[in-house]
């Protein structure tokens, strides 16, 4: 027989040395909008892959909530098909899926139906009893934004969101509001039911391995941080370029535009992590405090001088002729929605004073690329003959988010030979070819983090509101005069004014 314990067990000692995340508590995830695209394409495949890789706890359960007239079996069959189609790992392991599917149920109800929440509560109680979910709940709002407030309200009034036994968390998809006022109203509505610690505002960009790698690159390597400032950096370019158009999202995009769709969230996140100070540790508030400080430090924008908007007309992308934005499905033929934004920002702090940040995003650009590119200042003095170095380009450090995730450093090197001739070479680090593990989908990481209660990679209330404040300022400037749309051809790098924006500072956009 085993001996008596001489040291109390306060932590799971079998976990020592395992380079794997802690297992979340058994929980039920309630997905509102369970018959929608996001659930099919992202959430269920993410949950399946988490289960496959042993990250989900025993007893983990999913309740799909939607107003679609299907039976529970039909719902299971639908999500099984979705996993079959969209899982990043193939083929789907039937036994693992079956094991996960045993915990999947469906509640049909309109999102504002108080009686429906009674049935949902009964189903959650059943899971607590039969599958040991112990009152732990994740409410995932994968619905259109107009349902966010009503769902939150009903979760509160029905008592389902009450704390007590187990934890309760709510995940909210973007867009989180459509301006500062609506974001504040939504925050207010959510806070009437949940505390900030229970709220997980998702921006899937932050779940990407390569975005997190920017933080590691900056703060785990001693050689970069000392030169990551106004003294050595000439300027920073942040690009989120898409070669696709709006596909079938015309209805949504007409109310959104590039400013709300990408700038307010993805570009602001990339700006924050590129410019932030080192946090004292990697916990949620330490990281988010530093990100918010960056947003607070943005110098007030002069919209007429610092912002360019564009909308694509017909053109050619990747050898294919494509229509202009106004010819897309569900788009007004006189639409003034922007599909391109370029912004020049300055950050008023000691690290970045007078160092411009150029941000751009657009649809139907020549290629897909997301990157943070830092141009360093030229050496103060070149001891070589002018002819030897006239074509020398400055040092660039580029952190590519997608595609070809990795980092690239452009440096000068001597061409072998008796004459001193220099040329520029790239040192490339490709994330994908340097690690054997296939990167998980961003949703896998974020869903797991939420279940573990780690909000580091989720946006905080003040972060969201700061970003909306900037967007509102730009919108207000744009409202003063109508745009000359369309003003760039599909397949080009945006309107000429975007080039002028950076060229007037004596700089040029990179070709990503």
């Amino acid at each position, binding site marked *: 027989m085993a*001996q008596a314990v001489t040291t109390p067990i306060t932590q799971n000692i*079998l*976990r020592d040395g395992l380079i794997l995340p802690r297992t979340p508590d058994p929980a039920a995830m309630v997905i509102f909008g369970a018959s929608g695209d996001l659930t099919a394409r992202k959430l269920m495949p993410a949950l399946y892959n988490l289960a496959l890789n042993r990250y989900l706890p025993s007893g983990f359960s999913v309740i799909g909530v939607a107003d679609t007239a299907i039976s529970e079996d039909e719902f299971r069959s639908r999500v099984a098909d979705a996993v079959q189609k969209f899982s990043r790992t193939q083929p789907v*392991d039937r036994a693992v899926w079956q094991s996960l599917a045993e915990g999947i149920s469906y509640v049909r109800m309109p999102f504002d139906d108080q009686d429906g929440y009674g049935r949902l509560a009964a189903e959650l109680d059943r899971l607590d009893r039969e599958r040991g979910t112990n009152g732990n709940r994740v409410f995932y709002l994968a619905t259109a934004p107009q349902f966010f407030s009503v769902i939150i309200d009903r979760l509160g009034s029905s008592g389902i969101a009450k704390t007590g036994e187990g934890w309760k968390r709510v995940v909210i998809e973007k867009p989180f509001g459509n301006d500062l006022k609506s974001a504040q109203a939504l925050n207010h509505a959510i806070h009437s039911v949940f505390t900030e610690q229970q709220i997980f505002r998702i921006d899937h960009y932050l779940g990407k391995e390569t975005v997190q790698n920017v933080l590691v690159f900056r703060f785990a390597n001693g050689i970069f941080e000392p030169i990551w400032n106004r003294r050595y950096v000439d300027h920073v370019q942040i690009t989120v370029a898409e070669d696709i158009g709006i596909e079938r999202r015309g209805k949504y995009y007409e109310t959104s535009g590039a400013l709300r769709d990408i700038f307010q969230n993805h570009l602001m996140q990339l700006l924050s992590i590129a410019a932030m100070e080192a946090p004292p540790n990697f916990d949620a508030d330490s990281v988010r405090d530093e990100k918010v400080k960056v947003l607070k430090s943005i110098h007030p924008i002069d919209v007429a001088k610092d912002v360019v908007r564009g909308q694509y007309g017909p053109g050619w992308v990747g050898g294919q002729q494509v229509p202009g934005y106004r010819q897309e499905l569900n788009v007004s033929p006189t639409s003034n929605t922007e599909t391109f934004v370029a912004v020049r920002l300055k950050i008023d702090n000691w690290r970045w004073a007078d160092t411009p940040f150029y941000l751009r995003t657009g649809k139907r650009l020549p290629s897909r690329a997301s990157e943070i590119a830092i141009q360093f200042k030229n050496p103060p003095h070149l001891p070589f003959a002018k002819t030897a170095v006239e074509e020398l380009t400055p040092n660039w450090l580029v952190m590519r988010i997608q595609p070809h995730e990795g980092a690239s450093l452009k440096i000068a090197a001597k061409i072998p030979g008796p004459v001193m001739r220099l040329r520029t070479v790239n040192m490339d680090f490709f994330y994908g070819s340097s690690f*054997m593990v296939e990167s998980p989908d961003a949703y896998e990481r974020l869903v797991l983090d939420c279940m573990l209660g780690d909000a580091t990679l989720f946006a905080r209330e003040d972060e969201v509101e700061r970003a909306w404040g900037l967007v509102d300022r730009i919108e207000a400037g744009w409202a003063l005069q109508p745009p000359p749309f369309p003003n760039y051809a599909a397949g080009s790098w945006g309107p000429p004014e975007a080039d002028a924006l950076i060229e007037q500072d004596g700089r040029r956009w990179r070709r990503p």
Partner: protein
Amino acid sequence: MTQNHKELTARTFVDVHAIQEELDQVRWGLHADGGGSEAAQHAAAEARASVCNLIAVVSNEPELGAISSVLDRLSVTNPSRTLILLAQHTRAADKLEAEVSAQERTESGHRVTTERVLLHAHGEPARHLASLAAPLLIPDLPVILWWPGRPEFDSPLFNDLCELADRLIVDTDEGFDETDLTRLLGVARRKTARASIGDLNWARLIAWRHTAAQFFDMPGMLARLAHIHGVSIFHGSDGSTAQARLLGGWVRSRMATVGIDVPLEFRPDDSHEHGVCRFLIYTGGDEGLARFSLKRLRGNRLLTQIRLGDQDLSPRTVRLESRPAEELLGFELTLPGHDVLFEQALDAALR
């Protein structure tokens, strides 16, 4: 995924300086399509991505083919300078040959270049290949010694290479008996020619360890771990027990950190031929009896079950990865320094 593979192999050398020169030549040669053109120079000036020096020791030609294939696949994710030592000291007539090659692969548009030196020796030179390997290593990169079969623990070659290496990687599933395991542990603990140890067989146990640890992440289960009173491990019917011993040693060593000695029971199981088949942890105490079980299912899966008293909780099926050698090796290459947990598990397995 696009893939392209270009290889350049040089003639035979025995002089270390000639080998070093040829390494530079073959690497240059991969990019020499344009002769001395600026484009070729630019390509050749591209940074070399190398994560380590990897020395693999094989004893016969058929094994050489298999090991070379593993290293080929490994090089895509772990570009390294690789030295393969085909050491045949039992063959008469001294012989020492070297073959230098460089490979360039393009995977999804990313180019990976690796260099390989095959050192082939018979007779006495085969015992002293470490002296030729040492000057061929890239400075300041860790040296990994991969010994795919059962090491010759007493051979000068093994000890010289351990002296050179930062890490020794073996596969205890290659018929290691208790004596071999004891000697392996000795390598990690000796004062000279000491290397940290990695074991592909230990890497295969990650899923078992992870899933077993998850039992006690569940609310209320940690207290039961303090009342563990036994572990049963069922292994395949072919009689190889190294993996089962390591798994048992792992539980025993972890529990020893809190002063609990765990009795281990090993039993053969006809349901599988090889490897760990079932892993049962028994607990008692005030919470009552409980059994935590993992069972290997056909098709690379694990079934996890918890029984509390006479009540079964929701079972769960998860994947039990069957990783090829290059993935296990790649995983071992990412581990820094001594794998203390492995050494403690090995030690506990032998007690």
